[in-house]
Every structure is written in C-alpha cells, then in structure tokens.
C-alpha cells in the first residue's frame, strides 16, 4: 500500500514541479510549487518523518511561498513582462539538461546504497531528531546561526536605502 502511495505522491510531485517551469504566469508557478511541497511533505510522512513534513509545509509552503507571492504581486509581474526567449536557446537548454539527467540516471542505475540502521518504530520522531541535532550535530547547528545572521545582515544591507 505505502509503495503505491509513494509512487502516486512522487509522480504528483514531479508533475507539479514541471508545471512550475512550464506555466507562463508567475503566480501559477508559485502555486504549483506549493503543491510540490505538499506532495513532498506527504512523502516525509510515509518515511515516518512527521516533524519534517510539518516543518516543510509551515516554512516552505507557508512562509517562503507567501513571501514569493508578495514579491511577485508587488512587482506586478505577469506573462507580458517576461522578455522573449529564442526557441533555439530554450532547445539547447532543454537538451543540455536532458543529457545531464540521462547521464546521472544512467550512472546511478543499479547502484546499491548502504543500509545503516533497520527501520524502527521511532525513527524520524522529533525526539530522535532532537538528539541528533543537539548532540551529534550541535556544532553545525550553532554554526548555521552565523550563516543565517550573515544572510540577514546581507539582505538588510542590500535592501535599505543609503542615508546620504
């Protein structure tokens, strides 16, 4: 059962991701992206990672996408403002990306991954996540604070008006 659900959600995620690229209207693109995130959140649930699923929806589908929508609407972007791109260029891009995809898939076909731990009932629970995050990966957790601080300072700096 879960396998079928996994496949259905996966196909759904890929299809909506494709629609993000193919729709001309930026607002539609963003809405499709939200759909993609929901599908992926569903996959997380299937993998017993409820916390990740919820965070994914709250942060990505909720906060970030709303921000995107605001930006798009504020700038009043739509189909008409999108400059024309030549067919040739699109064709080249598609072919190149397609080749990369084929090559990657081909190279990874039949490769074995390693199973580290057998699946347990509490795998993916918040408690375990907390253990890993605050014990094993405490340093990266702390250091990522610097990353966010830097990103924030950068955003403010670029955004604010220069006082003359």
């Amino acid at each position: 059962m879960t396998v079928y659900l996994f496949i259905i959600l996966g196909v759904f995620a890929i299809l909506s991701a494709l629609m993000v690229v193919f729709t001309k209207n930026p607002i539609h693109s963003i809405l499709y992206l939200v759909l993609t995130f929901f599908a992926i959140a569903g996959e997380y649930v299937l993998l017993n990672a409820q916390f990740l699923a919820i965070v994914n929806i709250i942060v990505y589908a909720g906060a970030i996408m709303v921000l995107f929508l605001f930006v798009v609407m504020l700038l009043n972007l739509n189909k008409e403002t999108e400059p024309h791109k030549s067919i040739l260029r699109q064709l080249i891009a598609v072919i190149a990306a397609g080749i990369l995809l084929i090559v990657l898939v081909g190279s990874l076909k039949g490769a074995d991954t390693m199973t580290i731990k057998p699946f347990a009932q509490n795998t993916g629970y918040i408690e375990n996540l907390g253990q890993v995050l605050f014990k094993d990966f405490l340093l990266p957790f702390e250091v990522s604070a610097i990353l966010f601080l830097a990103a924030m300072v950068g955003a403010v700096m670029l955004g604010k008006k220069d006082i003359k």
Partner: protein
Amino acid sequence: MLQYAALIPFFPLAGFIILGLLNKKLPKNIAAVIACGMLLISFGLALGVFMNISGKTEEVQLAPWINVGSFSASFTFLLDPLSSIFLMIITGVGFLIHVYSIGYMHDDEKHNIFFAYLNLFIFFMLVLVLASSYLLMFVGWEGVGLCSYLLIGFWFKTKAYNDAAKKAFIMNRIGDLGFLLGIILLFITFGSSDYHTVFTKANGLMSGDTMITTITLLLFVGAMGKSAQIPLYTWLPDAMAGPTPVSALIHAATMVTAGIYMVARSGILYALSPVSMLVVAVVGIVTAVFAATIALTQNDIKKVLAYSTVSQLGYMFLGLGVGAFSASVFHVMTHAFFKALLFLGAGSVIHGLSGEQDIRHMGGLRKKMPITHITFLLATLAIAGIPPFSGFFSKDEILGHAFSAGMVFWVLGVIGSMMTSFYMFRLLFLAFYGTYRGDEHKVHAHESPKVMTIPLIILAILSTIGGFVGVPESLGGSANFDKFLEPVFHDAYAKMLLMEHSQILSEVALMGITVAAAAISIFFAWNMYVKKKTVPVSEGTRLPFLQNMSYHKYYVDEIYSALITKPLDKISGFLGNVVDNKFIDGIVNASGKLTNWVSGLMRFVQTGNVDFYLLAMVVGIALIIFFKLM
C-alpha cells in the same frame, strides 16, 4: 682571504640599494663614485681570491635556504679556479666599464638609475658564477636576464628599443625553460642540484647514459638562449638598442658568456655524453660561421660587433664541444678584453660623432680620435688572431683541439676566422681611415674625455698581452692557464679518453695556416676599403643575392615572426574577440543599460548570459559523468 669571498657580490648589491633608494637625491658624481667604488672593492677581494685559489676548492655556506622533505638547498658559494677567473673578468672588466660609463652617461637624466641597474647586474652575475648549485645559479641566471631586459630598454622612449627588450626577454625565457627542465631532471636523477653531489655521482656513471644526454641537451638549450646561439641568437643584435656600455658589459664581456660558464661547469656531465658534445660543437661552429657571414655586410657599427660576438661565442661552444674546456674559458677571458674594448671604442666613436652609428658616414677618424683609433686597432688585431695579441692564443687553442676532433670543424673554423678578420678590418678601415664622409658642419668629431679613454687604454693593454698567460707548449710557453684550470676539469678530461693532442709540428703548422688566412683577408679588406675606397651602398640599392641575404640577416627575424609570433597573435585575437567580446562583453554592455536594481535583476536573468554560463557548466558536468561512468 677566502672567507671574505662571500662578500664579493654584496658590495654591488649594496651599491644598487643605495643608488636605488636615494636615486635623484644623490648628485651624479657621488652616485658614480659609489657604483665604481663598490665594484673596486669587489675586484680587490676577487683578486685576493684569485691569488690564493690555485689548486683549491672552497665552499662558503652563507645560510640554509630551502628545506622541504628530501629537497634542500642552501646559499653556498663555490670558489675554485674556474669561478675565480670569472670573478676577475666580471669585477675587473666590469669596473673599467663602470668608469667608462661615468663619461658616457654623464649627460643622461637617468644617470643614477643606470648605475643602480649596472650594480644589480654585477650582483646577479657574481651570484651566477659563485653558486654552488644549479638552483642558485638559476637565480643569478634569471637575475642577469632581468637586468639585461631593464638595460636594453633603458632608453624606452623609442618603441624599437622596447621591442628589442621584449624580444630578448622572450628568447631567453625559451632557453630558461630548457634550463629549468634540465635542473628538475637533475633533481630526479641525482636527488640534488649541488655541483658537488651531482658531479660525484655522475663520475660513477658510464659514458652515453640517456638521462645524462637529456639533461645536458636541456641545459644546452638554456645556454643557447643566454649565449645567443642558433636558433635563439636573434635577440642579441637587437639588444644593441641599449646604451653602449651595457652592450660592452652584458652583451659582450659577461652575461652572454654565462652559457659557456654553465657548460664548462657541467663539463663532467657533457663528457659523459658524446652526443651532447657533438651537438654543442656543431651548433657552435655553425653559429660561428653563420653569424660571421652576416657581419660581413652590416653597416651599423654596433650590429657588426654584435654579430661578431655571436660568432665568437660560437667558437667558444665549438671549444667546449670538442672537449677544450680550458681553451674556451681562455677565449672567454681574452674575448672579454678585446670585445669590451671594441664596444667601448665604438661607444667612444658614437659619443664623438653625437650618436652616429652608421659606418658609411664615418671615415678618417684616425686623426681626430687618436687614442680610440690605436686601441681599436689593437683590439681588431686581437680578434683577428694575429700573434702575439691575446685572441691568437685562445682561438688557436680552440682550433687546435677542433682539428683533432674532426677536420671539418677546423676547416669551417678557419673560414670563419678569415671572415672575422675581414669584417673587423672592414669596420676599422671604414671608420678610421680614408676621409670623413659625414657632414663636417653638423658634427665636430672629437676625442672622448679621459675618463673614457683610460679604460680603453687599460683594456688595450690587456688585449695585447692577455694571451701570454696561456702560451701553449708548442710555442715554448708553459700553458699556465690550462694548468690553473686543470683541477676543475680533471674528471671531465678523464672521461674523454680520446682527447689526444696532435703532434707539435702539426700544431705549429696549423697556427701558421690560420694566421696566414687571417693576414690574407686583412689584405683583401685593405685593398677594398683603403686602396679602392669602396663604400657600402646605401639603403634600397639592389644587392647580389648572397650579399642581400647576408645584409638582411637571412630573413631569420621575418621567418620567426611568420612562423611563431603571428599565429600566436591570431589565436589570442580570436579568443579575445570572439569568446570574450561576443559572449562576455556583449552581455556586460547589454546589462549596462539597466536602470534599477529590480529590472536589472529580472532582465539580467533573461538576457542569456548566465544561461550560457550554466549551459557550459551543465555540459561540462554531463561530459565528466559520461566519461567516468558510462
């Protein structure tokens, strides 16, 4: 005495630093005194070394230098008869040229910086000959190249001078590439670049080792660049763009002989490789004859001397190639005397004629510049190999060895020697004899000041008697010069079992032939330029084929330009224009019109430039993955 030897290079370095830092703040007189004084002290020390060195080899370690893993090198100077002779030449002739420059450069606005460069050059040259490892020698080697480059382009207001400087630099880099690869191979083979280690280990090897042949050939490529041998010789004549004392010091007496020094220093390695020896000898003799044929028709007084230098360097390599190491070093010494004198004499003429360099516009200077004339005559006799002048002894020693190595070397050598006498006397007769052909009203030829003529006189004395230190046994001498250098070349000679000297009778006979040949060509020159008063035709006149080829230096410059320079320019131009201008500049220009951040941001994404970059990345990644995994 020897412990002070390490200081020899540092006096010129101190001179360079003082002059370089104070530059304009120093009055010209004081700057000149500092520069010459530093060199005089070095010369004194060098003399002390020379007196004490006979038969000894001393190493003076200054400081550990590099120490990484198995690789180590140190600032160590090596003192032995060979380096002491070069020390004497560099500091002695260098000092005289410095003194001469006081007069020659007196009115130049960059007077002080000129002396600073000269001192720096002397420093690097001394490091080159004092080094006790190939690596340290390379440092000096590069340093003298740099100074030569700076001094050739010293009067940089003219484009031609700049081009000459660049050409010298590029040609030398090609040579340096060979030299550097040779050093790296030495490291791989012997695990060190110290002479001592390398030569000791090499002494145990068999003759004909492939690795040794490769190394020696690569080192020889370096020597070809520095010492202007075929095919890397074209920079030297162009280098005459620099001030005349520079030509005398760097491009005649010292730097260009660095290649000879290096090959002589590596004598044991060359002795192990008959193939390399043959290559050296062939390149040497071909260059000697080839350059001499060009010198026959040149009309610029410095160009004649430049090609003559190339030709004489060819003789020195011939000597090295046939195993006459000490004879070559001997010729380096005598050549330093008479060629420096010739250049300084030419400089005196140019100075006296307010910059005229074309011998067609000279003539009759004998009366106006008596000291220059006499000294120039003595130098010309020396280079032509007329006994008992210095050039006779050294050149004939080389030719004697060439004869035992192969008849053909000797025959070509004598032909080259004949041409040498001819073009040198052509130069002498055209410049100093006959009547003055320039514009009497414009230029008042005058003798140079004492500060210039006294070095000329000293060099003239040396050119005349300098050969007596090495009078061969066949002429009743005792070959002191060879004996002095014997300890250095002992191992190399031992490896070359075939080096048998020809019979005394035949040696004297050979000398007779060469002297007679030189005398005949002097007669021809006299007949043509003094008796018949021929003057070389002016530009644009059609010349007979051979003469034309010689006059245009066999079009070698043009061939190099067509084969190498132009295609490189084309490729670079293509990349610059098409790839850079079309893709990158075009995009940058397009985005330059954007007016504000947001529209810039949005349109930028879609202008296509990043598309292209990303495309390149994606294609790159796909290719990499494809080749590694499929």
